[in-house]
């Protein structure tokens, strides 16, 4: 395994130290394990806290800042954060108006946030949880862990972040987050497996002409293995999966997201195919974002996310945001 690290056991903390040095507008508590806006808490503002395993950067730490998250708590690589650090981040962010936990639907994330939420409640902080489960590759069923949270996390964080910034109340911000999630669907393909620093070897072997369809963002194999196909066909299949699982009629926000090692030249090519296919199907695109945002270390792969957007969502999408990973209007 070759990576730019010193010690596999200390990657997250050392990376956080670099993040702290690079972004003085953030307060990074390396020992306690959270990142919060330098001026937090903001009295009277509903605070947004997210988190999850590390290795998905810029998600979540790179989305802390005006117009998006108030705090983020990164766990070890691909490992949900522990309740203590979620609690610490929640307390650091809480400005008295309550805290929204934005949680990707993974058993570990759900349980750790739940435990932290209970602890926060005991300390008198009102916590609402928004669960993100947009990955249509996984069947939605109450008998299983349900769908994973992937690309839509960015949309939920951006849109609720804007609403919280302009004074949205706790219940309203959380409801909006759930609405964005419900309106979103994602599908991903991987071309390569990923090597976590701790494991030191790829999670699976993938022959030179095969790809994984329906992968998540933790280096796990996908729902099925397929032969490589041209981008046009992969995009068509991904959009089929999304449009079958969720019905879209109005304008959509599109995220073409790289899983880490897919270059922009390919991501833009993919976006071109997405735009062409959606036009064919009569789905109009209101807004779009192309880049590496919700990643899986250095996995070569991509996900497409569609969110059927209301006018309000689009207005909030356009609102200023100033974070290391996403920035406009400010």
């Amino acid at each position, binding site marked *: 395994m070759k990576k730019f690290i010193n010690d596999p056991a200390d990657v997250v903390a050392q990376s956080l130290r670099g993040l702290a040095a690079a972004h003085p507008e953030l307060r990074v508590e390396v020992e306690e394990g959270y990142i919060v806006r330098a001026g937090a808490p903001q009295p009277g503002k509903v605070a947004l806290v997210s988190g999850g*395993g590390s290795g998905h950067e810029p998600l979540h730490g790179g989305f802390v800042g005006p117009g998006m998250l108030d705090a983020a708590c990164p*766990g*070890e*690589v*691909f*490992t*949900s*954060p*522990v*309740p*203590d650090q979620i609690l610490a981040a929640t307390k650091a962010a809480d400005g008295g108006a309550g805290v929204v936990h934005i949680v990707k639907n*993974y*058993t*570990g994330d759900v*349980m*750790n946030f*739940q*435990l932290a939420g209970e602890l926060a409640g005991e300390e008198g902080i009102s916590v609402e949880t928004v669960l993100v489960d947009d990955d249509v*590759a*996984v*069947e939605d069923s109450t*008998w*299983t*862990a349900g769908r*994973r949270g992937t690309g839509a996390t960015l949309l939920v964080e951006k849109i609720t972040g804007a609403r919280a910034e302009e004074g949205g109340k706790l219940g309203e911000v959380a409801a909006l987050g759930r609405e964005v999630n419900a309106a979103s669907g994602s599908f991903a393909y991987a071309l390569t497996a990923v090597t*976590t620093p*701790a*494991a030191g*070897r790829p*999670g*699976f072997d993938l022959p030179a002409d095969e790809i994984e369809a329906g992968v*998540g963002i*933790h*280096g*796990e*194999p*996908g*729902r*099925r293995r397929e032969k490589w196909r041209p981008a046009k066909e992969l995009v068509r299949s991904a959009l089929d999966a999304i449009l079958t699982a969720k019905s879209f009629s109005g304008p959509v926000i599109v995220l073409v997201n790289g899983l880490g090692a897919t270059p922009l030249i390919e991501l833009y090519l993919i976006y071109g195919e997405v735009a062409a296919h959606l036009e064919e199907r009569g789905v109009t695109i209101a807004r779009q974002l192309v880049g590496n945002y919700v990643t899986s270390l250095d996995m070569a792969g991509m996900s497409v996310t569609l969110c059927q957007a209301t006018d309000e969502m689009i207005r909030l999408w356009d609102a200023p945001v100033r974070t290391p990973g996403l920035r406009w209007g400010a």
Partner: protein
Amino acid sequence: MDAALARDWMRAAAEAIAAGADGLTRLDSAIGDGDHGVNLHRGFTAVVAALEKSPPETVSEVLVKSGATLMSRVGGASGPLYGSALRAAGKALPATPEVQPADLVTALRAGLAAVRKLGGAAAGDKTLIDAYGPAVDAFEEAVAGGADLAGAAGAAARAAQAGAEATVPLQARKGRASYLGERSIGHQDPGAASTSLIFGALAEVA
């Protein structure tokens, strides 16, 4: 079982996890995200350190402290699950220096209930419950049959291992492996494997 033996159990579990970490990670790479060995290794190393720093005087406290430490240091799915299992088990024990095998039956059941409640999984979902459940049954049966701690622990360890191996043909319905659907079939569940190691550690020291 006294507090010293309980601490020995946790130390032996830590050693078994350390020795088996690579194997657990390999199992988790196949159907999960490849961190289970590292997660538990980090957690049990912290447990041993915490127990050494200020050794609790009762079995109950040993288990509660171990559970709380796992909860605060592991993360992922296994941290809260093992953390609340040990915490619930410890809380179900009397605050006496020594506890009897029958007390441990109650404690282990309380731990299992906590895992079920937090994780929502049932037997056959291909999770650590598939090793934990049979282990508790075997422990209880042995105690009912008059076995001492060593005998009951041995029976539990064998049942846990058999339960872990029996997860191979199952399709996962909970946890990360469930995302693989049918592709989860044919692999042992990493959490069931680590549960087997922890019961094995108990049999070793009992």
